């Protein structure tokens, strides 16, 4: 969707692919051309390079944009695209290989003079070696997949007693999600904030940083809220993070849009985590603050154009905050939920952007990521951005499947978050809320009435209370007395 929008603006013909589960998806309907690539299971469709390249050839494509899931960080796929005589919109395969294997990326960053958290220099071979390394580094530690990110294979381990079980689950996840099941061990930095820096690099040596995003509001090491500027980052730290990201990009020979992720501890010291060699889900935050279209810039860079501006031309204005609305039951540990979207109202109004693939009738399955839509708000400062985000989230209605909207509404109003006092432990300490928002008498009465009407409708197998039904008229008469 996001890429198709940029293509339409630039006058580029767009070709979409879809699995059997996505025939009705919005990206299929909006694209100029669309081709089926197989069954719902990703391995038989979106993760099948041969099928994707076959469509690209048949449709006469010039370039392939990998989006931000699936094969977007696959060096082999980037190579395969190039070998097929097409342009890959992203960093070349060898650059991805340099940064995609996490222990190698850590080494590269260290050599570029960027601080790196204590950890294993290479992937660890087995549980026994992990035990030794974890002892050397000192608990708590993180187990991480060497082959990729997205929270998969990642686990905090507080003590040696937990290591074996964590090792087993993380290996299994990594094997399922990445090319390698290899894991490595890293020192866990407690009470840290997850801050990342957006960069752009062209094929002519031009590299700029655009600003940071705080992505500390996470569950299962996956982000739920991102904002820029980060409340904890001042101008001096911002420049140091920006320069660090640019140094890493130069050392790797980076091209296209990318993100360097850092952990910032309570004292403002930072350490490098990894580079995401793709467009990120949360890129709209940076787009709203800088006024740039990152996807359009990705396409221009891929076409061989130099960056149309330099570092000193980059302006950041105001603040932006993104809520990732997911299909999850936030009251039962954020377990993924499924269902059919029965009713949808997307927010609008000043300073609000919605990136969404939702439509009424969409069946949310467990085949793909639970992300439903992103609600992004921009304001002249953080206070205005928060007010708009709060307003937009409360205006949003998604019925038919449990969503994270109540979580977002709560956090946007919660004093610690509003004050910018939060770190990666926030969700576990602030959710579920101790005292849920209480309805006033009038609202509770309205809810009680609807609870009855909805239950009666279901019991009778049909909706009750048409607008002109007898009791509704009676109510109106009461209201006029």
């Amino acid at each position: 969707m996001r890429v198709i929008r940029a293509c339409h603006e630039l006058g580029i013909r767009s070709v979409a692919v879809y699995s059997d589960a996505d025939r009705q998806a919005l990206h299929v309907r909006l694209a100029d051309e669309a081709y089926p690539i197989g069954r719902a299971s990703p391995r038989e469709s979106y993760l099948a390079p041969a099928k994707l390249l076959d469509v690209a050839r048949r449709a006469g494509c010039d370039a392939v944009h990998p989006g931000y899931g699936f094969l977007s960080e696959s060096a082999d796929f980037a190579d395969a695209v190039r070998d097929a005589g097409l342009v890959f919109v992203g960093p070349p395969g060898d650059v991805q290989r340099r940064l995609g294997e996490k222990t190698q990326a850590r080494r590269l960053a260290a050599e570029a003079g960027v601080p790196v958290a204590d950890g294993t220099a290479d992937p660890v071979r087995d549980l026994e070696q992990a035990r030794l390394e974890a002892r050397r580094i000192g608990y708590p530690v993180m187990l991480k997949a060497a082959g990729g990110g997205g929270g998969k294979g990642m686990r905090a381990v507080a003590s040696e007693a937990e290591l074996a079980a964590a090792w087993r689950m993380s290996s299994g996840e990594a094997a399922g999600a990445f090319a390698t099941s290899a894991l490595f061990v890293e020192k866990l930095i407690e009470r840290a904030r997850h801050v990342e820096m957006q960069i752009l690099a062209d094929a002519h040596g031009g590299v700029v940083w655009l600003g940071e995003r705080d992505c500390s509001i996470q569950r299962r090491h996956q982000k739920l809220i991102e904002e820029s500027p980060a409340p904890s980052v001042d101008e001096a730290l911002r420049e140091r993070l920006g320069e660090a990201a640019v140094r890493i990009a130069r050392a790797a020979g980076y091209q296209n849009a990318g993100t360097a992720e850092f952990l910032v501890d309570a004292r403002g010291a930072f350490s490098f985590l990894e580079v995401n060699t793709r467009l990120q889900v949360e890129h709209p935050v940076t787009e709203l603050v800088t006024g740039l279209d990152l996807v359009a810039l990705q396409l221009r860079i891929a076409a061989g154009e130099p960056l149309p501006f330099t570092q000193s031309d980059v302006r950041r204005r105001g603040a932006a905050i993104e809520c990732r609305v997911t299909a999850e039951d936030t009251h039962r540990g954020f377990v993924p939920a499924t269902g059919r979207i029965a009713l949808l109202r997307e927010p609008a109004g000043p300073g609000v952007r919605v990136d969404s693939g939702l439509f009424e009738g969409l069946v949310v399955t467990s085949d793909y990521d639970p992300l439903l839509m992103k609600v992004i708000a921009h304001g002249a400062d953080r206070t205005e951005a928060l007010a708009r985000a709060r307003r937009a989230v409360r205006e949003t209605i998604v019925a038919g499947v449990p969503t994270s909207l109540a979580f977002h509404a709560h956090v946007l109003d919660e004093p610690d978050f509003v004050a910018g006092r939060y770190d990666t432990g926030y969700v576990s300490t602030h959710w579920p809320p101790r005292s849920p928002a209480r309805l006033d008498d009038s609202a509770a009465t309205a809810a009680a009435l609807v609870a009855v009407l909805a239950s009666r409708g279901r019991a009778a197998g049909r909706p009750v209370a048409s607008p002109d039904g007898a009791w509704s008229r009676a109510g109106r008469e009461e209201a006029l007395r």
Partner: protein
Amino acid sequence: MIYEVTVGERRLRVEIASDGRFLVDETVVPAEAVETRRGWQWSVRIAGRSHEVTVLTSDPLRLLVDGNETEASALDERAAAASRGAGAVRGGHHELRAPMPGLLKTVHVAEGDVVERDAPLMTLEAMKMENELLAPARGRVVRLAVGAGTKVERGAVLAVLEEAD
């Protein structure tokens, strides 16, 4: 018909009288409700206050009331009386149910095995995350309802355990 209704932590008695009037805790409420989406959403006016109420999910019933999510339930009096009578699960048996929809990746036990409380029984993969399902109590696995490689829905019974001493 009279209903026993809960909204969040409140309990209310709601009656829709035969003349269509709406009573809460035996007091007539001047309410006007317009169904804006069949079965899913109502606009309710009470003495000039305007409320929008959307059914988010029906089982369990969750409502969105002017942007606030709340749990709710409505039972007619007969059903309410019946549900108070029921409730006891068969003594000594524990059902392991799928906490989320997903793919049952591995089954770590066999029927007849005696397992400790919190022993991993199965691994359920959902959204590419692996979740170990643990034994709710020490007991003997009397039934495995599904095998590895099966896609399961939320709430599906996966195994039955008989408490062991």
